[in-house]
């Protein structure tokens, strides 16, 4: 009897401890930005999105893209929370995932054909659309 009582107590304690843990997860969060942000880099190649409170430098991206500078960058966030970044003169779209104090490159999506002339992102819910408005080329970035 005493042994059975100890077992019940141990199970109860385990249940209580598991309930007090920090592993709460909110599912189905929609991070989607309805409209892309068009950001102008300062002299230090830093961009600041005041609406979504985001500031970072694009020097590393410019280095990857092999260009010295850009007049503006286009930035949008999809439902999953991934950031998409590109600019006129780029041949790729950079997909980042936010981490603590950083943006980590997840994927460099190479755009087929010529470099982008006048790129623009559109939020399409399940995917992000890339348009080169100079020539009307349109890409579903989840399929490129």
């Amino acid at each position, binding site marked *: 009897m005493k042994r059975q009582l100890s077992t019940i107590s141990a199970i109860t304690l385990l249940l209580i401890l598991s309930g007090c843990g920090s592993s709460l997860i909110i599912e189905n969060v929609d991070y989607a930005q*309805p*409209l*892309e942000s068009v950001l102008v880099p300062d002299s230090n190649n830093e961009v600041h999105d005041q609406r979504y409170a985001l500031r970072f430098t694009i020097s590393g991206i410019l280095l990857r893209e092999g260009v010295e500078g850009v007049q503006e960058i286009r930035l949008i966030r999809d439902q999953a929370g991934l950031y998409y970044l590109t600019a006129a003169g780029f041949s790729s779209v950079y997909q980042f995932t936010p981490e603590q104090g950083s943006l980590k490159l997840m994927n460099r999506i190479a755009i087929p054909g010529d470099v982008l002339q006048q790129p*623009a992102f*559109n*939020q399409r819910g399940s995917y992000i659309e890339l348009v080169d*408005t100079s020539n009307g080329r*349109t890409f579903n970035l989840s399929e490129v």
Partner: protein
Amino acid sequence: MNIKKRSPRIRLLLLSFFTLLSGLSVHAQTSDFQLLENFNNDFHRISTEIDQVIDMGALREIELEISSFESRYSDHRTLITAALYPVTFEERVNSLRDRIMVKNQSLSVVDQLNSRIEGLIAETDLFRSRINQLNSEISTLQQNIERSSASESRQAALIRQYRQNLESRDLFVADFLEELINRYQNMDSAERSELSVAADRLQDNPVEILKSIISDYIELSNNRSGLSLPDYVSMRAQHGYFSDVWSRIGEQLTRTFETERSRQARTEIDNMLAAWLASVDNNVWSLLQQEFYDRSIRLSPFTNSSELNRSLHEYIDAAYEISLESNREEDYGKYRNFSDFWNTTVKANWGDLIIAGNILTHSDIAAVDVKLSSWGEAAAPISNLMFILLIVSIAVIVGLVVLLVTRKS
């Protein structure tokens, strides 16, 4: 875009062009960001049009443009609302409609004001044309009077006509001044500020017209051909009326129609009024002195009302003293001469003008009348008949007494 001065047809074409252009951009563009840019540009363009519109017709067109703007972007209202947060698409469109309503009210006021201004312009044009006509007639008459010096009867007729013309002009100006008083004396500050906004559209504002009238009067007063004392006394009366009107509405008028330089405009008219009075007085006092002189009444010189009054009293007082002392027929003749001129000419012919023109007041005239009466009593020669009758009576009595005494004895 400034559409306020364009013709309705051009405005309609421009409106159609922008609608077509925006419509194309909505359908042809494939960037949501660009769509929002277009939305904001269209919104600001319409806002500017509302700010600048100045007539109801153009406002109606902008109302149509807002409806077109709304329908053009209504398919993207969710995107636009998300992008505009915390403002919504509907709030943006409604804000334009609210501003249209406010503008509609203010344009209604402007329309009313425009009607008033147009009425004012028509009145001033009419006045200007009538006064020019009268001035032209006066000028022609003056020339004719100068040319017809050979024929006295013709000259007299022309002078009569000239005076009638001046009287018509005075009456017309008086009517105009009366109209100004009715219109502006009780005007409140709101009306004044509304009128002053539109006053720059008046080619001839009331202040300018007043200046022009005074200038004409000064010229008329300086040109002496054909004018006599009553004409100048009449001008003095007109000046008095003019000054009275100016003191009542001058400030209102200048603050309405000369907003930038109201004080300066008031000073200008004050100076012109002073110059007009000086010119009239220059003629009035010398001609009045001459009128007395022509009737052998030697008054001491005078150049204003109080001096004239003093001069009249001095003359009567001196004559009265002489009449008391000597009581000669000659003194009585002097009295009759003065009394005749005073009663039949000064009081009967010029009385109203003299009072209206501030030459003498009622009490001044009454005081002269009282003294004149005393002078008349003093100057009237005493008759010898009573003395003769007394002597004869005494002689008769003495004769009778002598007769009685001689009969008794």
